[in-house]
């Protein structure tokens, strides 16, 4: 039996590239941040959780 190599992506998958908003694929950014993506993600998640009712009321 011959082993077949599975196709591999040529470039590493950047999780930021998968972000979409209202059907639009978001671009990467040129300037680096002082914070890590995980730090920013958590700050945003917490802020949204703290303001859930207010956000749901915004039309």
């Amino acid at each position, binding site marked *: 039996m011959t082993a077949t190599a599975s196709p591999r992506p040529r470039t*590493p998958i950047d999780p*930021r590239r998968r*972000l*979409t*908003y*209202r*059907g*639009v*694929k*978001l*671009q*990467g*950014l*040129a*300037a*680096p*941040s*002082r*914070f890590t*993506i995980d*730090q*920013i*993600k*958590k*700050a*945003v*998640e*917490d*802020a*949204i959780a*703290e*303001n*859930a*009712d*207010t*956000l*749901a*009321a*915004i*039309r």
Partner: protein
Amino acid sequence: MRSPRTLIRLRPFAKPPRARSVFINCPFDTDYQPLLRAMCFTMLACGYAPRCALDFSDSGVVRFQEIVRIITECDLSVHDISRVELDRRSGLPRFNMPLELGADLGLRLAGPARQRARKTLVLDAEKHRYDKTLSDISGMDIEAHANDVAKMIKHIRDWLNANRGDQSILPGAESIAADHAAYLTIAPNIIGGLRLDPHDVLPHPDFLHVVEQALPQLERARAVSPSGRSRPSSP
């Protein structure tokens, strides 16, 4: 010598493609900041990457040289020539914005082939004021934002939508404006979450990254009603 793997780790932020990069030429003072941030928010929401002089802080480079480099790396550019008032401290006018607009238009008119296809949006606070302040560009389409955030969002969104090429239609200006209002609601909590002082304003590159992460989450949060059920999508 560093291995290629190390180089990738040290340069995590690859430049966005030129076709999706927008150069911004505008005032960077605190009075203008709400308009600049609304402009950047809209560009990010439409799938474009805002670029401007705030991207770099290397005092070793000649500022204008760096600005021209950024202009050439962007297929689109927005120039706001609304700041015609005299500077409060010096009592003199500022010429940086007309200079950068001139560099952009020069590239468009007589630059290399790729630069001649540039798309340019010129903004002012009032509709026909530029006839007096910059009459050489009379006849160009100029949009007036009246220093209003909602108008800024609409002009930027509509212009990007008109130049979107084969991309599907962009989110509407009202949706983006509502998400921008939602972002402003949670911004103080985000600043607190990043352990910055409440009075701190996020530095520009940090602001862009926060908005990039916030947009998908805001969309999801606003799609859920207070009872936890998803809202029906509007037609």
